[in-house]
């Protein structure tokens, strides 16, 4: 074997292969297709990539694995791996380098689970006016008297019939025209982009054309596959942003670009590949699922190579569109400014440095094939405009979906993602801002934080009398109190559960207004951690979990949530002050967990200033809705460009009293401000505590 290579085997997946010596276990896992959780992007701070190096000779694989076959123990690891775990071989995947053959066990909690994405399309009103329209025309074939060229023949008919003037076409489309005209016996359907360019010609009369609107989130990418004529959403597809492996937040990605030669291209290639995968998913969904063919005896039929023969198995009563990638003739993209820049390989460095200018505000129309996006190669990808460095095309999407600039009501729109984006105002004036909520609200950096995947606690109730906890996990409908302990299979806690937990801890008096655990506790769920002496509160006992240890929320976790919610609350308040307003009429919460947010809990924890509970609305993935609106109505693209330049971006951290405001907003629900709408929801003594 090559001296510079070593054999690495990952368990329990069994993936194995030779890797160059000197790379980290995380890098090796990536090469071998094993997903290890790395929320911090290998910054050695999240401690989620704990793995165990097995000792001994493993005959089955023919390797001798030893703790000495990896690089020596590093100081950073001590924070996450106690002495006992260290003894049994635990290491951090991002620190430990391969120096010889090893067998690596990836424990359940370190495996990156499949995320449950809830970015479903909402029913919003959109006018049908797509950028790509189809026109049916019938022409006379050329004769000696009238030998005009094929392209001009089409243009002449489109002008006569539909008044379309001065059309052009790209070479790819042109190459196909002569064949299609004759195949269709001079009756064809022409797809025209923005009344300017012929992007496709199909034989005969075709009634439908298709497009896809995609929201590229820092963590989640969601696509809405639509019929451009009926406006129907045919399918919603999603995936985890493949760039997550370079770091969980926008800053980590920008840093990756700044510190890694070729890093920008790598990240761009990854997301483009992801988008193509997403498009393939959407296309595959238009065909019946395939199953193994069985003979009369119920045995699987195999082909000459011994592989099972697959046959289509349509669901009864369902029609299948059977589309190809070529049938996707338009695409819109939204994303925060950093995702926008990285995808387009525009230098994102300056977006990460104050005063955070983007490379471009204006929207872009880019030929799909220039981006290597595999839809109809002559189609354009419309990239929505950016507002500012930290308020990108995704926020423009939110704005054109919610249209606060057409409303009399003063609206506050909060888009909670890895970065929080805020918009405030009405048709008179709109301002936007962003705040560093950090990844805490999405589960990172908390002791048992995780993504919204099966086993994540998503709802929590705590009894104020007994301090007993009831909760619900993703993947199981029944709450804890209606289940057996072993049925819960808890792994951790995700975003919506994190919002719930702070509100419930406060309402039950388990933590005080300042966020510290109360000295008066009513249950044995409160305790001091044996290892570090930190106070913690048990949400799920070990027997209710699949990771064989108590799932707790620690004092430090509470502090992290407070930082995030303080940033959002303070942002809202400073924006209101900037506009000279005391209150707002409506609060809209957007984002992946926008529809999952319990609005009562959001108010109790003080995510934003006091307001009527009935006026708090979850608007789901409004950014994706905006992308869809721009796909189906080209006027929305014009509107988006106007909005992006007419919403005033303000930088909150430079406000004179930011520090004071931020610190007041970290308390629950707020250090000084009254919350009259919590009267009755939270007991007197809790709400009015000193």
């Amino acid at each position, binding site marked *: 074997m090559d001296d510079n290579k070593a054999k690495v085997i990952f368990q329990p997946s069994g993936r194995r292969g030779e890797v160059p010596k000197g790379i980290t276990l995380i890098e090796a896992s990536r090469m071998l297709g094993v997903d290890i959780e790395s929320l911090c992007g290998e*910054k*050695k*701070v999240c401690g989620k990539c704990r793995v165990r190096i097995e000792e001994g000779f493993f005959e089955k694989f023919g390797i001798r694995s030893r703790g000495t076959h990896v690089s020596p123990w590093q*100081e*950073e690891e001590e924070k996450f791996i106690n002495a006992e775990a260290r003894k049994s071989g635990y290491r951090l995947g991002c620190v430990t380098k391969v120096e010889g053959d090893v067998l690596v066990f990836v424990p359940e909690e370190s495996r990156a689970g499949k995320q449950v994405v809830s970015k479903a399309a909402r029913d919003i009103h959109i006018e049908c006016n797509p950028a790509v329209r189809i026109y049916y025309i019938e022409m006379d074939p050329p004769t000696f008297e009238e030998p005009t060229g094929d392209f001009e023949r089409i243009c002449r008919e489109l002008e006569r019939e539909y008044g379309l003037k001065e059309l052009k076409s790209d070479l790819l489309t042109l190459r196909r025209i002569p064949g299609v005209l004759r195949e269709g016996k001079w009756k064809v359907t022409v797809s025209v982009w923005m009344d300017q360019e012929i992007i496709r010609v199909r034989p005969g009369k075709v009634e439908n054309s298709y497009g896809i609107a995609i929201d590229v989130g820092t963590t989640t990418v969601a696509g809405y596959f639509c019929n451009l004529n009926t406006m129907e959403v045919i399918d919603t597809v999603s995936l985890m942003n493949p760039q997550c492996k370079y770091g969980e937040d926008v*800053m*980590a990605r*920008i*840093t990756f670009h*700044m*510190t890694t030669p070729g890093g920008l291209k790598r990240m761009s290639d990854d997301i483009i590949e992801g988008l193509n995968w997403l498009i393939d998913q959407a296309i595959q969904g238009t065909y019946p699922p395939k199953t193994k063919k069985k003979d009369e005896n119920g045995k699987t039929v195999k082909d000459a190579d011994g592989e099972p023969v697959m046959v289509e198995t349509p669901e009864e009563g369902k029609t299948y569109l059977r589309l190809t990638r070529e049938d996707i003739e338009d695409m819109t993209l939204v994303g925060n400014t950093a995702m926008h820049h990285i995808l387009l390989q525009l230098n994102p*460095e300056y977006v*990460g*440095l*104050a005063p955070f200018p983007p490379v471009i505000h204006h929207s872009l129309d880019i030929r799909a094939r220039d981006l290597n996006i595999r839809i109809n190669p002559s189609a354009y990808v419309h990239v929505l405009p950016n507002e500012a460095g930290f308020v990108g095309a995704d926020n423009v999407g939110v704005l054109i979906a919610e249209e606060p600039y057409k409303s009399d009501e003063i609206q506050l729109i909060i888009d909670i993602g890895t970065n929080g984006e805020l918009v405030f105002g009405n048709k008179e004036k709109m301002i936007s801002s962003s705040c*560093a909520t950090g990844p805490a609200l999405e589960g990172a950096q908390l002791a048992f934080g995780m993504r919204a995947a099966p086993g994540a606690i998503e709802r929590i109730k705590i009894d104020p009398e007994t301090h007993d906890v009831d909760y619900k996990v993703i993947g199981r409908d029944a709450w804890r109190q209606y289940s057996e302990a072993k049925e819960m299979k808890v792994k951790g806690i995700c975003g919506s559960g994190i919002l719930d937990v702070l509100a419930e801890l406060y309402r039950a008096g388990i933590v005080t207004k*300042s*966020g*510290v655990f109360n000295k008066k506790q009513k249950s044995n769920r409160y305790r001091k951690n044996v290892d570090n*002496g*930190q*106070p913690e509160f048990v949400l799920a006992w070990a027997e209710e979990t699949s990771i064989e240890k108590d799932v707790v929320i620690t*004092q*430090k976790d509470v*502090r992290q949530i*407070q*930082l995030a919610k303080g940033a959002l609350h303070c942002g809202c308040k400073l924006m209101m002050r900037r506009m000279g307003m005391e209150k707002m009429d409506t609060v809209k919460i957007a984002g992946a967990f926008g529809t999952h947010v319990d609005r009562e809990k959001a108010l109790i924890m003080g995510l934003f200033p006091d307001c009527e509970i009935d006026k708090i609305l979850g608007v789901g993935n409004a950014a994706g809705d905006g992308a869809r609106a721009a796909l189906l109505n080209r006027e929305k693209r014009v509107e988006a460009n106007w909005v992006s330049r007419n919403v005033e971006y303000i*930088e909150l*951290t*430079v406000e004179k009293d930011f*520090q*004071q405001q*931020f*610190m*007041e907003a*970290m*308390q629950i629900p707020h*250090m000084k401000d009254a919350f009259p709408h919590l009267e009755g929801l939270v007991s007197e003594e809790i709400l009015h505590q000193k």
Partner: protein
Amino acid sequence: MASKEELLKQLSDGVVEYDEEVVKNAAQSFLDDGYPALDGIMDGLAAGMVIVGDLYERNEYFVPEVLMCADALYAGLDILRPHVPADISTVKGQVVIGTVQGDVHDIGKNLVKMMFDVAGFTVHDLGRDVPLENFVEEQMRTDSDIVAMSAMMTTTMLGMKKVVQMIKEKNPDVAIMLGGAPVTKDVASLFGADGYAESAGNAVQEAIKMISRLRELRQKEH
């Protein structure tokens, strides 16, 4: 009339309980009764801040509480500091402090600044979003012993490396401290810095430890 010990306790408690009035009154009485102002600072205010540091370390106090304690401490410092004779100041050091270019977060920096203030340093605060060369120029101009830089974002952290190089080239004896959320011990040593603080909180603890050591020294002198 309260004894010296009672007044010192009031100063300390006032800081811990972030009660500016208590601190102000105690500081004034302390002066009125003729006790040395420096004792009030080190054995009253600073002693209180050491307790605050412990509470922070145990997560019982959080940034808001620490900031309020800092306000109380400054209230006392404003009264006592003018009465400390120049020649017996605890530390005759100077420090240049600021948040690096591209970064506008300065809560952590302000806390560290306070620690230097308490310890008796002359602090040259450059504020935030400070152009890198300004650190170098200010150090040269003032001949400061310490340059302390903070960055909250990984993107801006990279700028600190340049400053370290620029300063060390001109004056290798200057001690350089780095701080801020993304800064790790590795980063600090990689950048060639002399000290680091992992986060605002950590900086507070580090700085408080620094004060504790100063107090020990003083006690030994007595």
